[in-house]
């Protein structure tokens, strides 16, 4: 399935828990903010927001990464734009 992941750099405090759990999807930049990767790759350069394909297992782990964020800086949407995390 296609998902969209958005990091709010203003909320991110650089705890890096998302990187520990989902290193293929998140990476810290020099400003100590998490950027989004598509399976380890930052096509078109570094970005705080990215659309990508993910298997169900991959999505489950990405959600786990988002859940680990103490400032809820990571939002995950499905292809219809429905917010998967944080639950609304």
């Amino acid at each position: 399935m296609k998902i969209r992941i958005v990091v709010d750099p203003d909320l991110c405090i650089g705890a890096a828990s998302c990187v520990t759990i989902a290193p293929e999807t998140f990476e810290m930049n020099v400003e100590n903010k998490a950027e989004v990767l598509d399976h380890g790759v930052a096509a078109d350069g570094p970005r705080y927001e990215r659309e990508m394909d993910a298997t169900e297992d991959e999505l489950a782990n990405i959600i786990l990464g988002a859940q680990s964020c103490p400032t809820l800086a990571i939002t995950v949407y499905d292809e219809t734009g429905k917010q998967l995390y944080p639950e609304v």
Partner: protein
Amino acid sequence: MENIIILGGGIAGTTAAEELRKMNADVAITIIEQEHHALYSRVLLPHYVKGKIPREKVFLKTWEWYQNKNIEIMPGVRVEAIDISNRFVKTTEGRELPFDALILAGGGELNVIGGEPRGVSYLRGVDDADELIGLIRETLMHPEGDRHGVVYGGGFIALEYINIFQHFGILCDVVVRGSGFWSSLLSEHSQSVLAKKAIEGGVGLHCNEPELNILGEREVTGVKLASGIDLPCSILGVGIGMHPDQSFYRDNGIEIDRGIVVNEYLETAHPMVYAVGDTAQFFDTVVARRVVYGNWMNAQTQGRVVAKTIMGERTPFSLVSSYSTNLLGMQMVFIGDVDKKTADEIRQTVATDATSAEEFYRAGKLVGAVLIGDITSRATITKRIASRE
């Protein structure tokens, strides 16, 4: 197993409850929590105080969530006794609740300074944050140039206060007992980089001050230092650390050192009694030493791991912990075990005017690191510590 009791509804205890419920639909799960709130993120409190997020965003769970998950939460309740041999806890309301498994997730007790008129602020919980917002509003009504805050302490909470005061244009003085920020932990160079950043940012730094006396009876008007200096302020932000509630656990037969002593499975010496989060002094398999860490991911992951163990899938906890913060925008990270006393060797690997890096070695292995100003090597260092090279 019929009853699982969790003392403490913070991130460690609540995650444990959530994971237990995922694995078992029937067992009764009860969280006993001293505060009157559903789970919230302490890490979000500075964002809330600065007005970056509304108050409701601080909360991670609603009361309905507990209901929907069939997790009983008892807010505003304290436990006065734990009977390990007969397996029940007694609340201050006089209720006796039996358990088959007990998870101690109560966090720590804040170190306080005592004798506290209005204006003395701590940043432990959402109530403290509410109060601090009120104090800031009042301070901002003073004429410009007469808006003063003092920060007591030189660690993580102190940095949050400095950043908050700067955000609101409140003039800031910092008072520390030691020679600078994290004086018992950091090298002289690291301390000097932080001190320089603070002073350049307009912060008054007062080091080696063994005592701080509050001026003002009902409301703080300032502080008097042992060196004779008087500092005016309407807010005194205190961040001088935490300690475990030693006597409570000891009286109840639970081994306490710098925290509740547990192994890498988060098990105490008593069967089916566990400790997780800030209150646990656990055996860290990565650095081969018993440690206490007070950070979010550590607590959350321990909650997850202990749930597995209780449900029969005995799982060791293993994680390279890190703390990340900033001083007036200058980034810094503590990775792994950065205890000076137990390190065999500390290497200052970077030392410029604006950056510092220290690596902590024990038995020839890298066990921890501090990065200040330039944190680009964070991922590499974390991997090196994890690989136990």
